[in-house]
């Protein structure tokens, strides 16, 4: 509309325009609210000796896996015992690095003395952990190491390599020299736990990745239904599979279901790692031949104690603390130490 049409009316519109400016300003102000607060407020909290109770943060991979539920339980128990203020957080999904970074930052801001973490990404978490340590926070890795290992003050874990080795040796002994066709149901690429268990198994069995007896390798994300799918696919590829390595017991049970529907459950040897209650039950009922039991409760307990000791007595922490692993089976082989399922059920988690 040509502007010449109404020059006279233009003048009086100023009021309207001013009102708009005001509204825009209100919006901008609310957005700038937090920024403004930054300079107005004081220093950020620093970790360290502030006289209060020792504060410990526990960051697990997810909130939902029973392994981490048990780990949290152990941490809580230990925290109550030592009068420690415990806060917990977790990634939103297995592999969620950013969620863990955010949790680390928030815990540092909350002034924790120590952080215990099961890293979702062993490499990607490192910068955040380094920042935390720069601020004087003790950082402990639980269950799985960071890459490099020196990014944390200490690792509290089971020896995942050894856990793999145990079931590898066991499987080898059970096969009694028979020709093995092995399926490897792994975790996910680039995750240390998975790689360590995988390599341990092969070492225990005395073979390499390239060995022709390894007929199938699949990633399962540690998920039961994905384990079942993976096993089904493996059986399509090699129907005569007789040894199945699984990254954890949910995957083992998924694989068992796939084998059972093919009528192959009886003559196939499934081995696994974890030692959760469902898993040990499955050992007892014969679905799983053997599993390497780990002790997440112990990891967390020891981790909390380590932070307390560090704060109170300034003890030094270094390297690796093994929280132990036991081979659980009701069908032990000669020459290999093993515990039965009753022992396992007493100490199981989940």
């Amino acid at each position, binding site marked *: 509309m040509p502007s010449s*049409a109404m020059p006279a009316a233009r003048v009086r519109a100023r009021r309207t325009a001013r009102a708009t400016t005001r509204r825009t300003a209100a919006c901008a102000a609310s*957005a700038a609210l*937090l920024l403004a607060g930054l300079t107005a407020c*004081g220093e950020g909290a620093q970790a360290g000796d502030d006289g209060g109770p020792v504060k410990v943060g526990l960051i697990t991979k997810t909130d939902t896996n029973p392994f981490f539920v048990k780990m949290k339980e152990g941490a809580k128990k230990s925290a109550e015992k030592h009068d420690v203020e415990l*806060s917990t957080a977790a990634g939103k999904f297995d592999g969620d690095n950013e969620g863990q970074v955010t949790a680390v930052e928030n815990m540092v801001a909350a002034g924790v003395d120590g952080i215990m973490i099961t890293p979702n990404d062993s490499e990607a978490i490192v*910068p955040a952990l380094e920042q935390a340590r720069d601020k004087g926070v003790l950082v402990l890795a639980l269950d799985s190491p960071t890459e490099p290992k020196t990014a944390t003050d200490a690792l509290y874990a089971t020896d995942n390599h050894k856990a793999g080795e145990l079931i590898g040796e066991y499987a080898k002994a059970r096969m009694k020299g028979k020709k093995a066709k092995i399926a490897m149901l792994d975790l996910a690429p680039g995750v240390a736990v998975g790689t360590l268990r995988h390599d341990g198994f092969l070492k225990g069995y005395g073979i390499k990745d390239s060995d022709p007896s390894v007929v199938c390798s699949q990633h399962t994300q540690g998920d039961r239904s994905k384990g079942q799918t993976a096993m089904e696919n493996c059986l399509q590829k090699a129907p005569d599979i007789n040894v199945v390595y699984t990254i954890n017991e949910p995957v083992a049970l998924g694989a068992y279901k796939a084998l059972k529907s093919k009528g192959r459950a009886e003559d196939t040897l499934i081995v696994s790692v974890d030692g959760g209650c469902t898993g040990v039950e499955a050992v007892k009922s014969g679905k799983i031949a053997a599993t390497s039991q780990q002790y997440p409760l112990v990891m967390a307990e020891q981790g909390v104690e380590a932070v307390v000791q560090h704060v109170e007595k300034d003890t030094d922490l270094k390297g690796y603390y093994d929280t132990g692993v036991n081979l659980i089976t009701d069908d032990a082989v000669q020459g290999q130490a093993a515990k039965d399922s009753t022992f396992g059920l007493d100490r199981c988690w989940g």
Partner: protein
Amino acid sequence: MSTTTAPAPSKPPSQAAQDPPAWKRFVHTPTAGPVLALLVASTFFSFQSDQFLSGGNLALVIQQIMVVGTLALGQTLIILTAGIDLSCGAIMAFGSIVMAKLAAEGVLPPLVAIAAGIGVCALLGAANGALVTFVKLPPFIVTLGMLNIAFALTHIYSDEQTVTQLPGELTVLGDTFPMGSTDISYGSVLTIVLFLVFAYVLGQTAWGKHVYALGNSPEVARLTGIRTARLRMTIFTVAGVIYGIAALLLVARTGVGDPKAGQTDNLDSITAVVLGGTSLFGGRGLVLGTLLGALIVGVFRNGLQLMGVGSIYQMLITGVLVIAAVAFDQISRRKQRS
């Protein structure tokens, strides 16, 4: 208006004089709810935790929401057209892996690698736009497909490996500068600047008005002479570019190229948009509301962590907030109408 029409009446219009005061009109904007929620939450947390109102902590919250907040900015543009983008997180992850890998392996100079990463995001955004605009597929389906495509591309291209040893150009936005006694990251500043730019573009330019008109009714927009096909294409492509910037922020924030990143960011960005008062039916909402929405999520996550409340409860509360926000919006609009 033709030259033959009567000249404008000499009497000035009196309508403006009867406009309600600014604060009253603000209460009726969709941004009022989020502002109130943020103020209440902040007040609550400042009583619960001494650290909450510290400068460092507030800077931290902004730093933590910059990735999802930036994604949510792109998401806002698409939701304003009554669309939805499920692929934003996956597109961002792909862009971040592209720029990280190209730069870390020295294939391209760092700045060119960044541009390539953003370009890839723009391309995938444009692909979304083309499918929605020209093949006339629903945005939900198109971006659901693109979510899977971008996710797969990310994992194929990265070979499932986290990319480390990045050149400084890629992580500089994660660096901080002191402001008073507080360290503020460059990325936070970029995010806020980006929001201000788009608040201006949507509020003060013809393009912005057209985006709203398209969201109100594509048919009205078309009949008013707006080139709706071109506009929709542009919106999806611009959203892609914004996801590319989010990719750079992501790389800067974590210091690595992480193929597993961003898997829930699509829903998180929608959460921020909804909490910010933007209607999922299109045509109503403000980008500054989205920034507030992202801040609300960040403030709750941070504040609850400071209180020592577990992360699963943070999700619980976020869920309650989303439903409350939509309910608040619906009820206030119904009231306003009657």
